[in-house]
């Protein structure tokens, strides 16, 4: 009788029972590839698609790329602030480990040594290592990613990292050329280009130019050979295909119901008034009498409703100084003294605009900058113009013609309802716009500043920290500081190393700090590429 109660199944051995059957023991390369793609993106409003394998994190306040680029800034301290109190930056090592797993799974599945996953694996390595180095300086690379075999990897110099990343990009291009020529090669799990390797090849080379331009202070370094590498790519379009139009953009397209644009009707009530535009961004637009301001921003209602300025007057668009004390800024914002982000363009739908990671417009400014700097021959102005026009087109602004500006009517109660917007026809005339002295390309140092200013405007809400990096190496556009930016009125120059380095890789971490930053993990320290 007692025995009958013993219902324990003895079918499985004890060893069988140790297994966790709730999770997979392997997944194909295509799934790993999709995971990596989602890890690589930087989305507006500090959103990640997937910051790590375990979560989709939105509104992570530790990622304030857009704030640090002084585009669309916080006015409400409860939700965030504009301080340059950098902590550790993005950590992509686990993602690079996934890249390695992807390559291994592709090989296991019978792919040859050179296959689409391995070719893009080289690109991903370059992409992730270079991004981490741009944030911090020296980083572990050659001894990294060996798991138990090297638990305390030494740091490679930033220079070595950059050289290696450029080599990976070179090899990725070579492999892709081979694979494309052979034909029949494709990728699964590609949410960006649906497996089109030719588009990926353009991304690889465009990214290589971005990386080279970020080394603009290191042109004298013979090992890097920045200028000649740049020239080599630009002058060999057959070997190094580059993006030809915005259709080649590497961009994240938002989709309902799973992947909403970070600003959407659902969170308008919470967020709609907690950020306002920055003077750094809106100031440039109004200075240039730039029609983009009517698409990306709205006039300051105080100026329109109380001071009776025209809603389409550039003087009605005012951004806040990022250095301002938040209490003062929040009061001013409440009194409607600032321009807010355009509600129609950014808040009225769930999909907003695609978030460009590496884009055609940026490429044009990179080419213009390279030519301006004398790294390669060409017409800087035509690239400059192409960059501006690509940006304007992305907002639906015709070169010459008219479009409608939508400004949310005060006191309205539904951001999705177009009837709640006042509409204004805006006429544009490219010739007039471009004829402005501030806009018309002049070449030389001024021309460089113009290129960088227009690049800054084109990257509004796009490409993560790119505009911060441009500022960091060029000082363009002028970033402002004050109590609101904290850090002793300085724009921080780098991110800290992850806290785990301090505890688990102490010796190498300390050595890296000593050789670079006087022994202190100092966000105001100057890394090698900026010297």
């Amino acid at each position, binding site marked *: 009788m007692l*025995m009958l109660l013993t219902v324990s199944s003895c079918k499985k051995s004890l060893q069988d029972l140790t297994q966790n059957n709730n999770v997979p023991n392997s997944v194909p390369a295509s799934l790993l590839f999709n995971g990596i793609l989602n890890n690589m993106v930087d989305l507006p409003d500090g959103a990640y698609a997937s910051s790590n394998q375990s979560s989709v994190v939105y509104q992570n306040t530790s990622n304030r790329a857009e704030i640090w680029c002084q585009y669309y800034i916080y006015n409400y301290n409860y939700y965030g602030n504009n301080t340059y109190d950098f902590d550790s930056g993005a950590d992509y090592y686990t993602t690079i480990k996934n890249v390695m797993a992807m390559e291994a799974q592709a090989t296991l599945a019978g792919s040859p040594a050179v296959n689409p996953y391995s070719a893009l694996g080289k690109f991903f390595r370059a992409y992730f290592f270079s991004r981490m180095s741009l944030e911090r300086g020296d980083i572990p690379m050659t001894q990294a990613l060996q798991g138990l075999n090297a638990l305390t990897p030494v740091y490679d110099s930033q220079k070595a990292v950059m050289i290696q990343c450029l080599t990976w990009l070179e090899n990725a291009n070579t492999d892709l050329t081979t694979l494309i020529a052979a034909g029949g090669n494709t990728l699964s799990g590609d949410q960006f280009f649906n497996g089109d390797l030719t588009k990926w090849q353009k991304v690889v080379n465009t990214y290589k130019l971005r990386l080279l331009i970020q080394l603009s202070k290191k042109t004298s370094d013979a090992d890097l050979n920045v200028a000649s590498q740049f020239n080599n790519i630009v002058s060999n379009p057959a070997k190094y295909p580059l993006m030809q139009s915005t259709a080649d953009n590497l961009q994240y397209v938002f989709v309902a119901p799973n992947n909403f644009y970070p600003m959407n009707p659902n969170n308008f*009530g919470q967020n709609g008034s907690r950020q306002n535009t920055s003077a750094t961004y809106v100031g440039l637009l109004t200075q240039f009498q730039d029609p983009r301001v009517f698409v990306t921003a709205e006039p300051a209602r105080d100026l329109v409703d109380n001071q009776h300025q025209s809603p389409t007057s550039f003087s009605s668009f005012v951004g806040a100084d990022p250095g301002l004390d938040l209490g003062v800024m929040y009061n001013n914002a409440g009194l409607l003294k600032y321009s807010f982000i355009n509600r129609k363009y950014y808040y009225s739908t769930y999909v907003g605009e695609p978030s460009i990671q590496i884009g055609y417009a940026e490429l044009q400014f990179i080419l213009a900058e390279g030519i301006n700097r004398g790294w390669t021959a060409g017409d800087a102005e035509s690239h400059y113009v192409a960059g501006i026009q690509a940006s304007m087109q992305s907002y639906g602004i015709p070169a010459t013609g008219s479009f409608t500006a939508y400004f949310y009517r005060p006191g309205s109660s539904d951001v999705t309802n177009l009837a709640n917007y006042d509409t204004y026809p805006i006429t544009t005339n490219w010739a007039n716009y471009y004829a402005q002295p501030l806009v018309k390309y002049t070449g030389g140092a001024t021309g460089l500043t113009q290129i960088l200013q227009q690049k800054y405007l084109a990257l509004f809400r796009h490409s993560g920290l790119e505009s911060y990096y441009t500022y960091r190496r060029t000082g363009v556009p002028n970033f402002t500081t004050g109590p609101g930016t904290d850090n002793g009125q300085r724009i921080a120059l780098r991110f800290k190393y992850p806290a785990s380095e301090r505890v688990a890789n102490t010796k190498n971490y300390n050595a890296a700090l000593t050789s670079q930053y006087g022994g202190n993990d100092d966000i105001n320290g100057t890394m090698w590429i900026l010297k």
Partner: protein
Amino acid sequence: MKQIYNHLRTVFAVLLLCIAPVLLFGQTKIGGIVTDENKQPLPGVSVMVKGTSTGTTTDINGRFTLSAASGQVLTVKFLGYLPQQVTVGNQTDYSIVLAEDTKNLNEVVVTALGVKKETRRIGYATQTVNGADLVTARDPNPINGLIGKVAGLSIGATSEILGVPNITMRGNTVSLFVIDGLPFNSDTFDLSPDDIDTYTVLKGPAAAALYGSRAQYGAILITTKKGSSKKGITIDVNSSTVINKGFLAFPRIQNSFGPGENTFYTFVDGKGGAPGGVDSDYDVWGPYFAGQLIPQYDSPVINGVRQATPWTARGANNLANFLKTGFQTNNNIALTSTGENYTTRFSVSQQHQNSYIPSQYLDIANANIYASFNASKRLKFEGSLDFNRQSTDDFPDVQYGPNSIIYNMAIWTGADWSVNAPDIKAIWQPGKVGVQSEFEEYTRYHNPYFLTSVWTRGHYKNDTYGYLSGNFIIDKHLNVTLKNQIDTYNLLRTEDLPYSAHPYGREGNQGDYREDRRDLFDNNTLLTLNYDYTVAKFLNLSGLVGANLRSFKYNSSWVSTDYLNVPGVYAFSNSKNPIEATSFYSAERQISEFASLDASFGKYATLSGTIRNERSSAFQNVTNYSYPSAAVASVISDYVKLPEFISFLKVRASYANIKSDETSPTIGPAPFSTITAFGGSTGASLYDNPLGYGTTYDSPYNGPNYALNTSFSTAKPYAGQTAGYASDYLYQSAIKTFTRVNYEEGFDIKFLQNRLGLAATAFQYIDGPQILPNTISTSTGYITEYLNALKTKKTGYEVSLTGTPIKDLSGFGWDVLVNWSTYKDVYEELPPGQTTYNTFFQKGDRVDKFYGTAFVRNQQGQIINGSNGEALVNPVPQYLGHLGADYTWSIFNRVHYKNLGMSFQFDGSVGGVTADYVFNKTVRGGSNALTAEGALGAARYQDWLNFGKAGYAGSYVGQGVVISNNVAPNFDSKTGAVLNYSALQYAPNTHTAFVQEYASEYYNVTESNLMSKTYAKLREVTFDYTFPAKWLKGTFITKASASLYGRNLLYFYKDPKFKDVDLDQYANSNTSLTGLQSPTVRSYGLNIKLSF
């Protein structure tokens, strides 16, 4: 596996053979029962026929039978009791009452596997509490009654319905409950207090070593009532009625300023977004209540224009007005029937609890059956079955967020709306019933009636546990027991999320329905052989050998709609987008063998040892491990002549070395979840919350956690496509089980004929090498390495003082129990190669050091402000104190005069700090009374008066200095030390700031929310009266008593600022941040006990 079965079969066969009737011969068969003075049966009592070798010992019910002739004398002996002699007469049934030998004080306690031992022979610390003591002044949760009753045992009671208390022993969460000898997966609500005879707390691992790994943090042994020793039928009735009224800890709210931002508010549609509207997701930093005209949520709309209406504090005390008097009833009827060969007990209990939060309630029903019968003199069968049902359609979720009434009523909305207004009470907007709720805001906050009566959560849990056992007495030295126990629950939790509810992650306002289902089946088959040999006069050997087979299975699923098509239809078929679901399955088997030996050397000492071997599937690979324990006890007063005033002195010491596999005591709703649609957590954890809001319910589990199994994982980060990820974990090769070594030393001393007793224990634990998920350099490609590393050492002391200042002064008596305990835990050995652990900790540091954000100060200690007059915050967290208490204490007093008794208990905790979350949120949000008082309040009023005036930049001037020479402070990245103090010059701060900005920044720094954890409570006061037997004479009632009691009566805390949180819940945890809690209430109850 097979082996064990063969073993069991053999033993079973032997048992069956032995059932054959045992022939009796000779004289007359007589029988009887031996009890103590409290009529409790005494098992194991020796009954000998004087002058012969005939004799026996009493069984578990205190019964004996033997043959003796009339005129012979029975000698009845039991350690700790005065021997008695009974002359055999004509009757065949004898009732023998043994009186306690107060000189040779002796208690019998239940120890591991239900073995009863005399305390004098025990070498480790235990404390026993009578179940009856906890039902007279009962708490809705039976375990909460143990607060303050046991030194070293700490119970963090929560004020929530279904809130499981955090039970810790010496700082570790106790996860092992044992009922009648076998482990039980308890959520503490599934125990029926009326069926519990005693609670015995085994404090250290030595005491519990026979239970193996689950006992590493001690155990609570529960012995259920087994029926009465009195022959015939007894009916016991116990009934309690309790009301909950009056708050101990309550948010401190201001009613001077309403909601809004920067002293401004106007209602547009309650959906916000439009700057200048400030009508949603707002703070309580709005306009002063001066009766001025402002458009509000209920202002009339005339010709499409919302009219302005007077701005008044019409909702002052909304929270208090919303809460009502709570009510609770408990009823139990127990029926016992005892005959010659059997005892049965049937018990039915019912508990109904109406929360002081409207609409919310809990029902618990419990049925318990116990039966035993003696098939023969040597063979006894026992069985017990318990069924427990917890059920509610509506219980609260207090987790910070739009789901919480505290969030909605105390933190984020102001006094501009009234909880008594008919439109609020109506819940729905006219004509939009079921679709759109009525409130003054529609983005983040909720109407409290909507929250508590429409947005509902259901909890339905059935627990069934029971056992069958057979005990066979082989001879007077040996008996064998085979016991088979099952313990199973099934749980259903539901959530009906109505249209227009918008918790975090579900801002679409289109409702949801969710189910969380869990099934657990746990089976133990236990075989023990007990032995007891007196080898020589001075040496007695007793103990047991045994084996246990545990089989465990667990299944769960979590399923949710992704918005609803039709409002109010809570069914999966009504899901708008595809259903989101996850499931989990686990199984475990454990085969254990164990043995114990107690060697008593006459009156000098008892040496005890246990060993347990375990073979478990809950590890990376099948793992074998064993743990020994040893203890020694010596009653010095037995063999050394001590001064007269010392009546008893015992010393004891013990050692245990416990190992453990990779199991988890509890489990959450969606282990290894990959659901990302709701903004919740995913990944390799048993505790994932698929939702972005709310508390998850952790139910008892004690199964594998699979932490040591590497695997890939998947998620759907984009457009429903599956993405894969490789593991982020590394494993040291040949990883071993966790080790805990425990040493314990103590003494028990009694003075003045046991009028005063003191039990003191010192203990040391060395935890480790642990199975440590150690943070490694991410540049390895991995985040965590599991390895055997890290040792911590815990040392502590417990003192328990019992006294009887007045024993019997013409009917008056007074008893006192004082418990005191302390411990601290330090890092003894860091992982190899590391000089720091967890960023800041070094070898020798307390593990509960608390690092948090702190202000930057100059060398004189003044706060340094930035150029806007607001305090600078150090970029590196600073040491703010330790989280654990210095010590905890309790004093229990009982005075009685004849039939009238009164008892009361104070208890509390001293030392330690934590951060007050309610304070933090209410100050930052502007609702805390502090923001409307003193300098802050005055400046806040100025901010309102001067709103919108050009050039006005606030009135509040923060304390401290500013840097006057425009030099930026530089900080050491490791310590946060200011590196360039000498370059900084200071001037007094004169910058004005807006109060909202200043308070929100200043009180976001941990340092300004830091609260002491020193507090005390008047836990309970009870008046009881036992009706004199003579009054009951002639009625069918044999016993009657009544008690009137109050629980949770007074809360003593020094700083009124932080009296918004009742520390009970956090006293025993190292939490660095308190949570939201429902206000804690006083309880007043009446209890009646009757026996027939």
